[in-house]
């Protein structure tokens, strides 16, 4: 059953790619992508449920579908579905109809590579999949062919390629370290690495893990390796930004979490967890510094992504079932909320024809209904109840207070206050400040651009009020399967 589901999951975007490339007509490409998104979303839920009972290993140990992978697949599929609906409405505004089939092909290709990364059992092949995501998304980032977009795409590919080459070095060192235990030729599955990790020479293990952390941290957007993130997320078209923020960062955190699970239980575990916490806090600090004085609307969202990745890293680093649960719940909530924010930002940019926060004023006049959604999303992303991010951040905080990282948790709380004030100050200005006289911005309403916002907002509200017990069980299972149950 799970195999069929996985096949459908991977074949749907593939079919969308083929249809887009072969037909070369933007309408067909749009509908194919939306269909693929919806199919993936519908398939990922039973897939997650079906692997609760046990992970599935397939194709000569190369493919692994476990609960963790299933959860990240769910997050990615949600963003894929919502973004593909939004993209239909948004990309039509760009007046680039001839290039749209290529765009949708790249879009589905991007999703396909991310989904593949989630099911890879071999650490080396995982790296290859992540590298492929970089290559495909570069062209998405530079899609608009402006000077800024090309510059952003260049910075993206250079910084991220440099970063993940460090991750490759770390992977090779992991392989080498474990080859003393498992022999010179073996399949580098996560389970094999975790089995041999306690017997590997500790300094070697630690250096390998730190390299992997920095490498995949570059891809995930942890500071100080985040320098590509504001540029790439702000210059790409809004649906692509949502995918980058909501899906790609999650796939990279998957890599970090799996490697963290490999070294948990060994003698370097404390240092490794401390390193992850350190990066998390540093991301938080950097993000806040740049949020407070930000002038671009999408850059603001990008730095908010850095902040939330910091929260996820904190959750992983604090450790324990609670920390893991917080981080995982945060993955889902952040995907939903950030997609909402980017859709709103995309709408605002198109309406006001500018990326500056200073030119966006009196949003409620232009977007009476979706403007309310956007504002509520902003309150949610700043971490306030009753939205879901509050619950996940609170859980991470609890995990921090329990363990030995009280200082980090206290810093976290203080910085959250700063984020709340800083982030919402921009929104207050956008919504309630006086607008300069001039022609009112307007944008024709279409369901394509508003429906995804509703679809992102409602689960956010529901999950903020009710944490399903089933999810608790799933998170516990993830913790035990990834971290080995020992801490």
């Amino acid at each position, binding site marked *: 059953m799970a195999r069929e589901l996985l096949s459908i999951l991977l074949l749907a975007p593939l079919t969308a790619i083929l249809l887009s490339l072969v037909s070369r007509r933007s309408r067909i490409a749009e509908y194919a992508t939306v269909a693929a998104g919806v199919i993936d979303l519908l398939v990922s839920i039973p897939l997650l449920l079906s692997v609760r009972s046990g992970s599935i290993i397939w194709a000569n140990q190369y493919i692994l579908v476990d609960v963790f992978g299933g959860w990240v697949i769910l997050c990615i599929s949600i963003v894929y579905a919502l973004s593909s609906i939004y993209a239909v409405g948004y990309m039509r505004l760009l007046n680039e109809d001839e290039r749209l089939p290529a765009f949708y092909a790249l879009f589905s290709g991007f999703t396909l590579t991310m989904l593949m990364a989630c099911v890879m059992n*071999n650490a*080396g*092949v995982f790296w*290859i999949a992540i*590298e*492929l995501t970089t*290559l495909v998304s*570069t*062209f998405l980032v*530079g899609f608009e*062919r*402006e*000077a*800024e*977009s*090309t*510059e*952003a*795409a*260049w*910075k993206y*590919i*250079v910084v991220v*390629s*440099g970063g993940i*080459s*460090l991750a*490759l*070095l770390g992977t*090779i060192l992991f*392989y*080498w370290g474990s*080859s*003393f235990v498992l*022999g*010179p*030729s073996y*399949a*580098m599955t996560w389970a094999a690495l975790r089995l041999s990790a306690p017997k590997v*020479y500790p*300094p*070697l293990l630690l*250096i390998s893990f730190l390299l992997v952390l920095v490498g995949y941290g570059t891809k995930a957007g942890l500071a100080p390796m985040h320098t590509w993130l*504001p*540029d790439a997320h*702000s*210059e790409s078209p809004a649906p692509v930004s949502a995918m980058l923020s909501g899906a790609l960062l999650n796939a990279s955190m998957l890599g970090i979490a799996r490697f963290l699970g490999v070294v948990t239980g060994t003698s370097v575990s404390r240092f490794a967890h401390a390193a992850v916490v350190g990066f998390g806090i540093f991301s938080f600090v950097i993000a806040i510094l*740049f949020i407070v*004085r*930000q*002038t*671009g609307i999408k*850059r603001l969202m990008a730095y908010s992504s850095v902040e939330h990745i910091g929260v996820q890293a904190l959750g992983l680093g604090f450790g324990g079932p609670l920390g893991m649960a917080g981080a995982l719940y945060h993955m889902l909530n952040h995907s939903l909320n950030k997609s909402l924010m980017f859709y709103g930002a995309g709408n605002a940019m198109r309406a006001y024809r500018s990326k500056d926060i200073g030119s966006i004023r009196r949003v409620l006049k232009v977007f009476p209904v979706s403007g309310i959604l956007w504002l509520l999303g902003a309150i949610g992303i700043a971490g306030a109840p009753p939205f879901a991010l509050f619950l996940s951040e609170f859980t991470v905080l609890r995990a921090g207070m329990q363990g030995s990282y009280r200082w980090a948790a206290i810093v976290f709380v203080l910085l959250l206050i700063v984020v709340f004030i800083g982030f919402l100050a921009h929104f207050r200005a956008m919504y309630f400040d006086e607008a300069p006289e001039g022609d009112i911005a307007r944008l024709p309403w279409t369901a394509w651009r508003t429906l995804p916002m509703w679809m992102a907002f409602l689960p956010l509200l529901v999950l903020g009020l009710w944490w399903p017990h089933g999810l608790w069980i799933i998170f516990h299972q993830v913790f035990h399967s990834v971290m080995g149950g020992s801490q």
Partner: protein
Amino acid sequence: MFLAHIDSLQASIFSSLAILSLLLTFVMLGSHWLKNYVYAFAAQSWLIAALSASVGYFSGYRELYAIAVLTALFRGLVLPWLLMRIVHRLNVKREIHAVLQTSSSLVIGACAVMFAFVIANHMSRQQQGAAHVVILALTIMLAMKFLGFLMLSVRDEAVSQILALLVLENGIFLGSQILVPGMPLLIEIVILFDLLIVVACFGMLVRFLVVHAGTTSSRELNRLVG
């Protein structure tokens, strides 16, 4: 393990090839002309292919011969050819602005090699008869990483940055040939082809840079700040 049983002749051959590759990295670090940069990279790739072949010969992993041939072809011929095409098309011959003088960057590179040696020593202390080749391979792998990032930082031409990224990968490849020759073939081949795709993507991007941003020097790509 293979490395525990090598004799001095094999150690000499591996050491010589690896050290010459490192030297070529220094040549790349110190050269201003993009042509020399690309030729040094090609020579380095050939040396690494020779290293692959000799490891395959002495260790009995016959598939390394295939890897050696593929490396020599793709990294040694196709990649430099693609890069020279990009250089010709861009009509840039040399690095105009040097952030760091040649001699300073060579000295920093030497310090980086020494630092890498210290780390490599520390990492391999566990094995009782740690062959010198192991420490050398680790040193060179880490040193080429440092030198690659150094090149990435101080150079602003787009082609130089591409080459710096390729040097990073070359370093890893070199180290993995000596340290883990038994790594599954699939991964090695895919990494090899991955590089080809990377360079193709870079080629396209560089063209976009020229057309839309008007320049390939990252010194002038400063529209996105904050």
